[in-house]
């Protein structure tokens, strides 16, 4: 099981936090620092596996049922997927579009278990959902325009 997924930058500022088990909440940024230093996240059966890309740390907190190297590969897939979806992803993308990052993550990991590891499959689903969203948004825009005309 994956217990938590965190992304934060070199200064410990959180960029994304996803907990699959419940924790008493403090300030998330505090969490980021603490969990690195003390393996704070729930119970003893914890492993912290992270990769460092440019300014960002991608940290997965997992239990012993996960393979370390497997998770490292998964992080790689995650980052590559982000790269595809954002076109050359950088920290700013994550800062301003954290909701999208969540949506991408949701296609990879669900409730702490790995849902999909095939990048193409993930991207296809994300694209399809974005398309759906766009069609709805254009509909709303259209509605707004109508409203303006009425006014």
């Amino acid at each position, binding site marked *: 099981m994956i217990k938590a997924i965190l992304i934060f930058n070199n200064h410990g500022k959180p960029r*994304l936090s996803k907990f699959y088990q419940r924790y008493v909440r403090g300030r998330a940024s505090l969490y980021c620092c603490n969990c690195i230093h003390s393996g704070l996240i729930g119970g003893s059966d914890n492993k912290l596996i992270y990769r460092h890309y440019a300014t960002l740390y991608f940290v997965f907190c997992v239990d012993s049922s996960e393979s370390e190297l497997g998770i490292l590969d998964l992080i790689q897939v995650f980052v590559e997927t982000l790269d595809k979806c954002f076109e050359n992803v950088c920290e700013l993308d994550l800062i*301003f579009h954290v909701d999208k990052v969540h949506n991408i993550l949701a296609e990879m990991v669900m409730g702490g278990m790995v849902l999909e590891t095939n990048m193409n499959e993930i991207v296809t689903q994300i694209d399809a*959902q974005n398309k759906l969203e766009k069609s709805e948004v254009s509909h709303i825009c259209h509605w707004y325009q109508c409203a303006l005309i009425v*006014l």
Partner: protein
Amino acid sequence: MALKMVKGSIDRMFDKNLQDLVRGIRNHKEDEAKYISHCIDEIKQELKQDNIAVKANAVCKLTYLQMLGYDISWAAFNIIEVMSASKFTFKRIGYLAASQCFHEGTDVIMLTTNQIRKDLSSPNQYDTGVALTGLSCFVTPDLARDLANDIMTLMSHTKPYIRKKAVLIMYKVFLKYPESLRPAFPRLKEKLEDPDPGVQSAAVNVICELARRNPKNYLSLAPLFFKLMTSSTNNWVLIKIIKLFGALTPLEPRLGKKLIEPLTNLIHSTSAMSLLYECVNTVIAVLISLSSGMPNHSASIQLCVQKLRILIEDSDQNLKYLGLLAMSKILKTHPKSVQSHKDLILQCLDDKDESIRLRALDLLYGMVSKKNLMEIVKKLMIHVDKAEGTTYRDELLTKIIDICSQSNYQYITNFEWYISILVELTRLEGTRHGHLIAAQMLDVAIRVKAIRKFAVSQMAMLLDNAHLIASNTQRNGICEVLYAAAWICGEFSEHLEESNQTLEAMLRPKVTTLPGHIQAVYVQNMVKLYASILQQKEQAGEKEAAQEITQLMVDRLPQFVQSADLEVQERASCILQLIKYIQKLQIKEVPVAEEVIALFAGELNPVAPKAQKKVPVPEGLDLDAWINEPPSDSESEDEKPKTIFHDEEQRHSRHRQPEIDEEELARRREVRKQEQANNPFYIKSSPSPQKQYQDTPGVEHIPVVQIDLSVPLKVPGMPMSDQYVKLEEERRHKQKLEKDKKKKKQKKEKKGKHRRHNSLHTESDEDIAPAQHVDIITEEMPENALPSDEDDKDPNDPYKALDIDLDKPLADSEKLPVQRHRNAENLKSPDTEAPLVGKKSKKPKKKEKKRKEKEQEKEKKKEKEKRVTEEGKKGEDLDFWLSTAPPPSSITQTQSEPEGSTVLAEPEENEDAKKEEQEEENDEGKKSSKHRKKKHKKEKEEKSKDKKKSKKKHHHGEEEPAESVQNGTLDDEPLPPMSSYCLLAENSYVKMTYDIQGNLQNDSQVTVSVIFENKSTSFLKSMELNVLDSLNAKMLRPEGSSVHDGIPVPFQLPPGISNEAQFVFTLQSIVMAQKLKGTLSFIVKNDEGSTHEKLDFKVHFSCASYLITTPCYSDAFAKLLESGDLHMSSIKVDGISISFQHLLAKICFYHHFSVVERVDSCASMYSRSIQGHHVCLLVKKGENSVSVDGKCNDSTLLSNLLDEMKETLSKC
């Protein structure tokens, strides 16, 4: 109106969106908190709008703020509103927010049930997907129960996208609602062979996760997984499966043997490091579990080590780290194979990454031998010098000491070398481990007699240079070595050459700056030193010198008398007076040396840490026996414990011991005498190599202390440890030559080589004889100590057997009366299946139908499997798997047995799908074939219907389990003898029956399950249950409601329907039974209108309801009884006619006990209360009576329990 709305939304178009919020926060770095609180106010306004788009935007922003650590639980209701939006865009925002902030304590979560159900059945796959994803994060037991069927239906959805999500979420559902596992499992198993790889992977994921918790329940799936392993190409799936096999092999050794080949193939073929690593790991685990050697055993190990070497040599730090980690696993069982890669490990010590260096250090521990110890330690010493961080250096220091001292200094051939290593280590600045070095110095000096002379000379030197060690306050940790140095010099002062000088060193004023406990040792030991000097001088007739030394003491001691440390002050003033007295005598020219030295006469022997524990209780001494008999009941009380112990006696060695004792005692005495007699010879016969060193204080012996140039010191050469390495080599070489010469006279040669009697020699080491003829004194043990190491186990650990995972999804299924029923039956007849069958066939048909159905599916599955395997290449495979199919159960049973515990306890342990299957299979076989055929037909019809219309199948799947779950609870009712549900209250409208279960997770909660049955022809609704709380027992109400509020029953009852609701009660004390009054209020609705009705009831919390059936192994049970802190009581019931088996089953069932052991008409039973009281019973059956002796931590609880039991038994 519409216009107003539109206008509102246009205003809103200029609201902040998420990006604006983030930008704003970034622009307000100084007053971030203030800005955010302003934003939250805005968001609150936005949430009040009717427009869903605005709300969604606000919720989206809240989700971001939640990540920053702000509490957004207040917006839970708004989040639900957004979740229920019709547009996917908003829905997704809502579900994301919910998944981030909802949890089991969120009260509004129950409002989501219908919305989620709607989304799950939405025609848009992404609506369903987003709902599943969200639900996976916040599923609660209620949601799991209500939605389990919907999700199960989705597992057969046409779109793989939905299927895989549904499969994955089932794990969460199982966790929250364990009862769903059994009905859902067949379908889950089917998904292992789903055409879509994603779905397959999800199913593997879920089953692996389940199996990890209870591996033995999933052994039967091994063939299926084996097939997947050999056919799948998805690395992720392979890794999961391989990890799973790693968990399964300890349970089934034959599986391990079968695995080796495909695993080694994978190791050879794969290019993925992650897969390679996991394969290696599992191979290691398999080889460890296969204790007996296999033909190609060493080949596989060799392969693993080779591959790990590749990992370690890789430039990727992660691979290196993991490689070392896996290596250390191999090291434990196959040290030789790892030792050949010493070069690589040593190389890793130079790595720039500290964690890798630490891993390598761990490995070194197991790699030393007599041959290479010096070399390795030398290397480590270089690292110590180079090390930058104190933590790493301290780690090195402890490792050096660990490595050298491991298994009683097994690998040290030259203790002089070791002492000099320790002395060198004292140069470390700022280490925290001074006490470790000190302890080693003391240990070696005390236990290795031959080394004392050398040790004393080194310690004297340390004392002489104490100012270097103690000068820097930052180096405080290291001054602990002075403690050891002072003690060694004092205790073994006869070996000291320049005692005067040492004494002066100890009396220096600087010493008073040392910590108190060290000064105290100084003071004490300077007297020892003084005494030996005095003796020397007196014997030599140098009276003046003797008086001089006394004067020195009298002059210098006052500085310690003034010490602020009590201990120092006290000792110093006492000793000062003593010495003044000696001085007086000296002036009178009375010889005093003998008397003074008598103060410290006698030798201190090291005592083994466990010595005290090992003193056997003398025969006839019973510490538990009363010295004065207690006034009443003494007779029966005295006898009973004995009878309880009686069963355990053979198993407990303590009782057996006395027989061997005398023999053992004589032998040990002999050994000890011999040792003592031999001791002086060791020193004499030694060619004293240390003299050699001292004779040749070579130029390279650069004294450490000379670094400090400001202090002119006459320091004799302080030997460096390095020199020993060279000398040792020479010595070994010489020895070898000698040996070659004397090969024929080996017997004589042995005389000169006293091998340390307690060291284990590896073959290669054997030809290296220690440099000193050293005897490590074994730590002293009391005479006739017990040789066994049994005492190492904690005797007060009854939990060993209770090692039950609480997360275990299936264990909780005890709640279902169906399973309890089976439980009891199992107890009655664990090995004879016949009565079981008889009972079962009586069961209501509906239930059987369900079982049959499952059976059917399973059979189908098996047939399919068979076909597939048969089609497969190897016929052997089939043989293997078929032969393994039955054993798992026998193996699991035998595994629980070895300590003499019976199988009886086993069925209690847990209810699992696996066992279930087997039981069913057994049942099936024995049921009358007529019966069977009939069912079979019916079933087939259903099946064919299913196949015809997939749509209908969905429908079917949706309804079936719901029905069965409900029936499960109902089924038992018509069986009065074994239903734990008893009547709570009844009137013309409704009948309530209830059962109480302890809550494992919470030590003060019990769950009351109430079944409501609508007996009328009207519709019952708005049912509300209220209970008058007592001081001790309270109903758990949702937060915020008062004690007078009732709890609504979460369903309505149409005519003739029944349903179950659960209520949680908290209790403070559980030692007494309780009764709580309560009322059920409800509205009866029929054609004529609705009326308000009430029904009063009394809930009876019996003491048995606080007990949780907990299995216990007999050895743990014995220890528990022995621990002696249990109270004791007993009852006797006459006129019992039922069989003992039935009787036990009754106690197990109604009183939540489990059988520990049963011998003829006597059985020991165990249970545990929710608050952790242990309750032990000894049940004996006589002609017509039954007597029950109980022991428990709490006497009140026990007597109440026994009273209840009496009542049950007297009904028999």
